[in-house]
């Protein structure tokens, strides 16, 4: 990702960047759904049961997109981008931690490992794009990301549960980013 000052990016270039980023969120949305499905498939019941709805669990460094849709839409573009950038600054590290834990718990699940790795790369890419857009629009960036899930989980179940929440949050943020970038595209048409 290149850091360039806003004046040097023309309106056209910003619109192009937003369009590219929106396309990335379309991919992210699709892949994050797949990842969550692949993830639960390897953890056994209750994770793999369709009606599994565990109580929310705080994941260090990763806020849940809990702002209700109407309130989310009422936020300014800058504030929305800030929330997205903050989430995507953290997600790559979290997904990396989940991949390491799954390599331990599910060494045979190579497809899951591949998807987790891809998700971390995609989030890194989106974070770079968001940083570029916010720079171009002269918007304040998010705080530095926290690295990962902290120390190793104290138990296998906690590792599974934490991984589940990270994958679910990844999906939720992908949907929200897709929605937000879609909005931004209408404001910066090509």
């Amino acid at each position, binding site marked *: 990702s290149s850091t360039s000052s806003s004046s040097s990016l023309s309106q056209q270039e910003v619109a192009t960047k937003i369009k590219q980023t929106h396309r990335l969120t379309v991919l992210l949305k699709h892949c994050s759904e797949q990842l969550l499905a692949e993830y639960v498939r*390897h953890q056994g019941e209750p994770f793999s049961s369709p009606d599994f709805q565990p109580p929310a669990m705080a994941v260090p460094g990763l806020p849940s997109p809990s702002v209700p849709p109407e309130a989310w839409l009422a936020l300014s573009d800058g504030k929305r981008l800030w929330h997205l950038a903050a989430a995507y600054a953290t997600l790559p590290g979290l997904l990396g931690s989940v991949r390491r834990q799954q390599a331990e718990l599910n060494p045979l699940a190579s497809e899951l490992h591949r998807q987790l790795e891809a998700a971390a790369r995609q989030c890194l890419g989106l974070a770079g794009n968001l940083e570029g857009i916010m720079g171009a629009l002269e918007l304040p960036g998010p705080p530095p990301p926290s690295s990962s899930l902290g120390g190793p989980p104290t138990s296998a179940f906690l590792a599974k549960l934490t991984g589940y929440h990270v994958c679910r949050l990844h999906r939720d943020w992908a949907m929200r980013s897709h929605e937000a970038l879609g909005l931004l595209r209408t404001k910066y048409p090509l």
Partner: protein
Amino acid sequence: NLKCITHDLNRMICSWDATSSANLGLTYKICYTNSEPFSPVCIETEGKRADIPVTIGSTNIQITTLNASGTPLATETFVLPEENVSLIPLTPQILNLSADFSTYTLYLKWNDSGSVFQYELDASWQIQILHKETLETVALINYDSKLTGKDSILSWDWTSDIPLECTSYYVKIRCYINEPYFTGRKEWSEWSPIRTVPEKDTKPNSPMVFPQDKVVLVGSNVTFCCLYNEGESIKFMKYGSKSYPLLRLNKWSSAIKVQNVSASISSGTNVWCLLEPDGLEGTVLFVGYAPDTPQNLSCETHTFINITCSWKPGRATELYTQRQTKYILFERISKENVTCEVDELKPEHHCNFSVHANQKIYNFTLGASNPLGQAESSLLIDVTQRVHLETPDKFTVSTNSSTNAHLSWYIPGNFIQIRLLCQIEINNSNSEQQLQSVSMAGAENSNYRAWVDALHPYATYTFRVRCSASEHFWRWSEWSEGKKLTTLEA
């Protein structure tokens, strides 16, 4: 109503009831003699008990009640046969109660007070384990020992069938001494003061399910418990997708018993409880097999630098990564062992062991272990009879004549102590094939040469070579790559 008990068969404590109404200021004078012609011994006491030596046969006891000014009020005389004395051992003291939570085992240590008796005696102990909250007896175990005239620390352990974290236990012990020549009554001691596992005597500080990340054999019966805070309650508890009846252990702990568990998926079977108002706690059970005996164990050397042992793991254990089977290759003669790095996902495993100078015979034992057990295979080899050479490399063919060819190839390894046998395959363009063998001295990391004659002039041939140990054939190397050559015209 005189009652005498002894703790040590040396002295006895007699106590009695006094019927006189004015109890204040009374004292008692006790005089005792036994059947031997000794003069009576008298002592005065304020309490209605006295400490008297135990003697063989019966003891004559006279108890006089005296008022404050020493005036006798009443006198009672008893003949106390030994049969009326009770032997009640001293109340035992638990010295230490500790727990190994990973094995659900309580460890008890206590002092047997053997020095109370100057000679050897049979002692019986009863150990009682109770649920702390309900005081329900979980186990009552008899344990026999021999008092040796000296104090000994006795230890004993008990394994619970449910995790120790699930509930608190009380432990107490009592003693019974079987003195064969004592004709009096022999009774159990008092129970020792109750002890509980120190770390476990508090309410759970956070909801949890136990045991955590346990590894068990397929077919095991396992009990799980869900601990929750006061004010919370448990909705249900499941093993995988199956719900089980809840057994209430105490105010903050409920358990389920799962029978005959089957092999788990690689990430383990989840055991979880749903709490009111909104908690989810869980653990994972890894269910698998102990390692199978390593199969088709075979060891050979490629270069006389290392011996490579290979084997098949046998039945899958269904356990992975930190629970996977670990292999150690132990060589009895040199007493050396090697920890083998294996890829659990591969069907065959390998392990390298250094060849030692001046050692021909190697007595290997391959040990396989995982959390559920271990197995081993052994193999004795003479390394000079297990030579499996690397594929001949840098294979070249050349000629400067119409009927001969010079061949050269390289084989890594130190074969100075053996002779090599190499086979040269010659194919001509009419796909006629010849095999020629040639024997040569082994060398170290060396090129080897041979030449072939009786070839047809101006003919095209394809050559390949492979080698093995000459004296004790074990295996051919792989064929080298093929090299084409056309002989010169005649």
